[in-house]
């Protein structure tokens, strides 16, 4: 049967990409006086600082190490001095305070001396994966998942196809588009390096068809490499989501509850491929990224290569400032991005865009009752039933929502976008997922408490037994010494041992 769309559901929002898609990436933004590097990571445990306050640091020097799990190292984006570790407003919708390392730039931008490196293609893949970890690289497409973890997973599984994700489907965002146009060769080399590490059979760079310049540039760069193919996929939202892209490119569907590894496919973003190439060929750790500064409130929207820790106010200033007061400030795309509490928060590894949207662009409407038109069902790229899920979440019946597949929801927001009643469906699912996560944490704590109580009881029992053993040993040695010597010579000893014997019996 002929299929019009390679994926289920999906939507076609206005792209709003033309403001920035044809403008070069600005790479020479002046370094701000102070950089704020939050220790919290968008995924995993907080990082742990490894330099002290007042210590001088060089560009590219490791200043914080991963706090374990799915977090990454942090490197100094420029040279200067660490002046404080203090609470700042986190670049997070909650606006809660979070500790950050404050780096005062000395303006010299002196890099850390790096040993010269040989051709990475001749080196051991495990070693290269470790180097990617050392460079603090995370998935720059939005998931912020440490790339080294993904590469190692890729080595454990047999990967048939490596897909490099150039399906930048969020409206306004053109960071990957510009990167593919301007740095196609590096991306191709990065893709080949990932292939070398995970030993994939084939590499496909998948790009949406609304980026013709990027496709041309990549095709030119990929021409000399036989195993590498550029695939064009139709532009729709959420094509950039890994599961949807896999289906569009290979026709395979990742089953619910499984990962792309399980079907022999690994997806990395184009910006991540670029970062991996920079790390392995030039020993440059991840200290900056391309950020789209857009939205109709920005005077001169551009893509800017920004150092991590750059205050967002500095970035907006560099793009001509604000034309008017934005109705909403968003970090990331308008579909899946998060609202920002303040303009004084810094750029982080996952900041793909800063959007200052006008009231017309936000278009907030009060919701009406659900009319069960099922448009959300047709729009859901995961084949779920958002209206039923929302009904359960509304009644706080999370189990009910889970039977309708809440676990598989990717929070893409397609359902909210198409809803004629303007019901904030995706907000219900975000709430439910957050609540379920907290319940899991509480259950873990309960199990931990039970474990601790048991351990304490065992310890107390052991201590009591040891005390008793020590006492009886003491008594025995006393009895022995008492029986050796004449009874009359040790009246004090015998009298002191009597109560002990009474106590023990």
């Amino acid at each position, binding site marked *: 049967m002929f299929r019009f769309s390679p994926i289920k559901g999906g939507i076609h929002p206005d792209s709003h990409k033309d403001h920035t898609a044809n403008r070069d990436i600005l790479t020479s933004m002046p370094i701000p006086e102070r950089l704020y590097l939050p220790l*919290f990571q968008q995924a995993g445990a907080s990082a742990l600082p490894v330099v002290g306050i007042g210590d001088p640091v060089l560009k590219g020097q490791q200043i914080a190490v991963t706090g374990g799990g799915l977090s990454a190292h942090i490197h100094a984006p420029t040279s200067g001095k660490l002046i404080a570790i203090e609470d700042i407003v*986190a670049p*997070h*919708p*909650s606006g*809660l305070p*979070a500790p950050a390392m404050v780096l005062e730039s000395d303006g010299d931008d002196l890099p850390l001396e790096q040993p010269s490196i040989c051709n990475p293609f001749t080196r051991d893949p495990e070693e290269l994966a470790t180097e990617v970890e050392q460079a603090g690289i995370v998935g720059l497409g939005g998931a912020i998942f440490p790339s080294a973890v993904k590469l190692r997973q890729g080595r454990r599984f047999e990967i048939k196809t490596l897909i490099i994700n150039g399906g930048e489907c969020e409206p306004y965002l053109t960071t990957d588009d510009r990167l593919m146009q301007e740095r196609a060769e590096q991306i191709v080399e990065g893709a080949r390096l990932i292939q070398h590490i995970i030993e994939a059979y084939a590499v496909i760079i998948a790009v949406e068809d609304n980026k013709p310049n990027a496709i041309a540039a990549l095709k030119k760069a990929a021409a000399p490499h036989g195993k590498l193919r550029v695939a064009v996929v139709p532009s729709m939202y959420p094509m950039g989501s890994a599961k949807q892209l896999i289906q569009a490119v290979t026709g395979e569907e990742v089953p619910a509850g499984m990962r792309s590894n399980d079907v022999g496919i690994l997806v990395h973003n184009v910006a991540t491929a670029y970062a991996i190439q920079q790390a392995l060929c030039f020993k440059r750790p991840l200290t900056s990224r391309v950020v789209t500064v857009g939205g109709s409130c920005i005077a001169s929207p551009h893509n800017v290569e920004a150092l991590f820790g750059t205050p967002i106010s500095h970035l907006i200033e560099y793009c001509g400032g604000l034309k008017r007061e934005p109705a909403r400030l968003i970090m990331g795309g308008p579909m899946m991005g998060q609202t920002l509490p303040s303009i004084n928060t810094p750029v982080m590894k996952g900041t793909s865009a800063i959007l200052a949207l006008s009231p017309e662009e936000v278009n907030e409407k009060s*919701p009406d009752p659900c009319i069960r038109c099922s448009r959300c069902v047709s729009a859901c790229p995961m084949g779920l039933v958002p209206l039923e899920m929302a009904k359960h*979440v*509304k*009644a*706080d*019946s999370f189990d009910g929502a889970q039977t309708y597949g809440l676990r598989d929801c990717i929070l893409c927001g397609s359902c909210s976008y198409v809803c004629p009643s303007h*019901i*904030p469906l995706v*907000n*219900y699912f*975000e*709430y439910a*997922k*957050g*609540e379920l*996560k*907290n*319940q*899991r*944490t*509480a*259950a873990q*704590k*309960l199990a*931990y*408490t*039970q474990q*601790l*109580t*048991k*351990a*304490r009881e065992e*310890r107390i029992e052991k201590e009591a037994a040891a005390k008793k053993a020590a006492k009886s040993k003491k008594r025995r040695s006393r009895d022995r010494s008492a029986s050796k010597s004449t009874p009359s010579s040790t009246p004090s000893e015998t009298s002191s041992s009597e109560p002990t014997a009474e106590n023990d019996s």
Partner: protein
Amino acid sequence: MFTSTIVLSLLGVGLGGLLGLAAKVFSVGEENPLVEDIEGMLPGSNCGQCGFPGCKPAAEAIVDGSADLTCCPPGGKALVSSLAEHLGMDPSTIGEPAAPSLAYIKESLCTGCTRCFKVCPTDAIVGANKQIHSVIGSACTGCGKCKDACPEDCISLEPETVDLDSWHWPKPQWA
């Protein structure tokens, strides 16, 4: 007469034996088995925040209906929903447990007397003689036993604060 005596005594012995056997096989024991189940689900730290002397009396009270399912703050919502499921109650009709709190030691007042960590049911306080003691937040259940034991009155119970990890979007307000 002889036959009837034999028949009746055989009948008596047989039925008596059967009764004795049934008492063994179908024995419910001393205790309601439900109490044992519930006790296994409770934290087991006997902290007393429920108002009962320990987890076992609390389990008994929950089973006979004199205590609410929400009486255990360290158990939280997770415990409420698992208890409701076990007892066949609708979790949405039950309220929420009191927010768990954590113990904090005011370090400037701590003399290092070691009394607080000796009473802690989860070994959540670290310290040594004449050294400042500190609470490990992830292990503290907020029972307040340390607070009662502290001669300097330097321990306070504070509600657990929301951090970036535990924050999530609130439920959309919609009529």
